[in-house]
């Protein structure tokens, strides 16, 4: 079967499993003709898949859920990163981030709209920090890192694995503070499909997830080799070491690829996610978790 997959962003190190699977022909072996297209953020990917331009989206499941609540026709079919990577990152030695209250002392660079803002709001709610307690400067994603290292801001909010790798790449040590450990039950990466494609593909979705799982296992077993292969196949940003760093950072937050429940999406997860979205006012009540996901393609 022909499957068009939309990624969440342009090729990044954490997409290595897909590159490996493609390069080694795993999808073909399983009788799938998979084609990947790069994306520009999970929101856009949700729209692209919802519009039917693509069958499957690899995207942040929090965004996916939010998109579904906005009426975009999608169904979550798998989650392999049950803990959000959202975190605060500073430079080691310059800042100390142990307690939620520590954050009130620093200037925080954050991107308005999108997941940054969402996780921040949930974090505040969960830890009883009022909006005025935090000193937040809004800035674009690409500006955040530079501003952090130039000292314009003390802390930035963002995905831990990405910013840790960037900070280390620039010769500093990161001091990071994972929101998932402080009451933020958001979900990370997973897969969502377009209902039309779901009908057409059926069990092929299962096959796709199975093959992808196998690739993840392989990458987890040897990130170095995966990075070497991925960098040879695609134009990936950053050095080889950065790639490995990035990869392992994300794997640490993901379900063990060897485990049986890799990629499983549970009602509990989805309900918790939707509840928290409702609590912060991102979506209205009266939702039905079953409309958001299905685990029938779980391998």
């Amino acid at each position, binding site marked *: 079967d022909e499957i068009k997959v939309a990624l969440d962003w342009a090729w990044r190190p954490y997409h290595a499993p897909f590159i490996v699977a493609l390069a080694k022909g795993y999808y073909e072996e399983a009788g799938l003709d998979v084609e990947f297209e790069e994306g520009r953020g999970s929101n856009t990917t949700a729209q692209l898949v919802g519009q039917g331009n693509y069958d499957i989206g690899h995207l942040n499941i929090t965004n996916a859920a939010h998109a579904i609540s*906005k*009426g975009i026709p999608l169904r979550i079919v798998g989650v392999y990163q049950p803990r959000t990577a959202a975190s605060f990152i500073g430079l080691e030695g310059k800042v100390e981030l142990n307690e939620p209250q520590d954050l009130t002392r620093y200037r925080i660079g954050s991107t308005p709209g999108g997941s940054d*803002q969402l996780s921040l709001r949930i974090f505040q709610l969960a830890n009883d920090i009022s909006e005025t307690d935090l000193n937040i400067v809004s800035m*674009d994603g690409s500006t955040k890192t530079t501003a952090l290292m130039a000292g314009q801001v003390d802390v930035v909010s963002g995905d831990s694995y990405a910013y840790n790798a960037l900070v280390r790449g620039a010769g500093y040590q990161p001091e990071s503070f994972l929101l998932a450990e402080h009451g933020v039950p958001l979900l990370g990466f997973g897969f969502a499909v377009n209902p039309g494609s779901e009908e057409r593909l059926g069990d092929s979705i299962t096959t796709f997830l199975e093959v992808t799982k196998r690739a993840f296992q392989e990458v987890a077993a040897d990130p170095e080799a995966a990075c070497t292969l991925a960098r040879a196949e695609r134009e990936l940003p950053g050095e080889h070491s950065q790639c490995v760093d990035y990869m392992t950072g994300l794997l640490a937050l993901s379900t063990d690829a060897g485990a049986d429940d890799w990629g499983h999406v549970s009602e509990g997860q989805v309900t918790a996610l939707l509840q928290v979205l409702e609590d912060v006012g991102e979506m209205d009540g009266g939702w039905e978790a079953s409309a958001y996901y299905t685990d029938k393609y779980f391998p």
Partner: protein
Amino acid sequence: MTELRIDNPSAAETEDLAEHQRMVRRAKWLKIYHGSLLPLLSGIAGLLLWELAVWGFALPQYLLPAPMQVFETMIDRWPVLMSHLWYTVVASSVGFVIALVLGIVVGAAIATSRSIDRVLYPWLVIAHAIPKVVVAPLLLVWIGFGLKSGIIFVVVFTFFPIVVSTVTGLKSAEPDLLQLVKSMRANRWQTMWKIRIPTALPHVFSGIKIAATGAPVGAVIGEFVASNRGLGYALIQAVGSLDTPYAFASVIIISVFGVTIWYLAELVEKLSIPWHASQR
């Protein structure tokens, strides 16, 4: 309109004058019709088309919200939008004025000296041809956040058209007229003011019109990159949370602002160069 009279009117001429004044009145109405009614009509037609497209193609809200939805949102969040607008207006205006002054001065320097032309122009072209997004972080680190960086974005955005049109305009002076003021021993400065600048104005106004309507775009992009206020900030927030009605409300306000600037620039043009063929 014609109070001052050069000839004494004859009876027939009085009749002509009446006829003429009728014509002038008609022309005035036609102008009002063309000047406000037509744009209004075309605006309404555009909105209708939009509404139709949304219903006809059954476009979902997240893709293209219907105008009515956008208007509701606009009314709901009017105060917030207005405070954002104000910020953007300030950044655009200040930035545009700086670009205008700087652009004309630099343009004059380039038009006057071949050496300045050759040394400076390539850098301006480079500054214009560089995607601002890359240098944005640099700019921010040096200048900091807030209004200042917004203004600088606007300047960078609007500077170039003004320079180019000023240079072409200043170089367009009739050689004969230059010889005329040379015979009156005008110095460079006077030649500039009395001949070159008037000749350049029609050109410069092209540049100004392009730049002026570009100013809000510059401001919004500046706010995109780093700011806590302004319509650009509103936009990025709206887009980030898939709140398309709010995004389109911001966009509409930006457009209205842009169109307003446009008509202002046209008005200033009309008043500044009534003598030019394009305005007669």
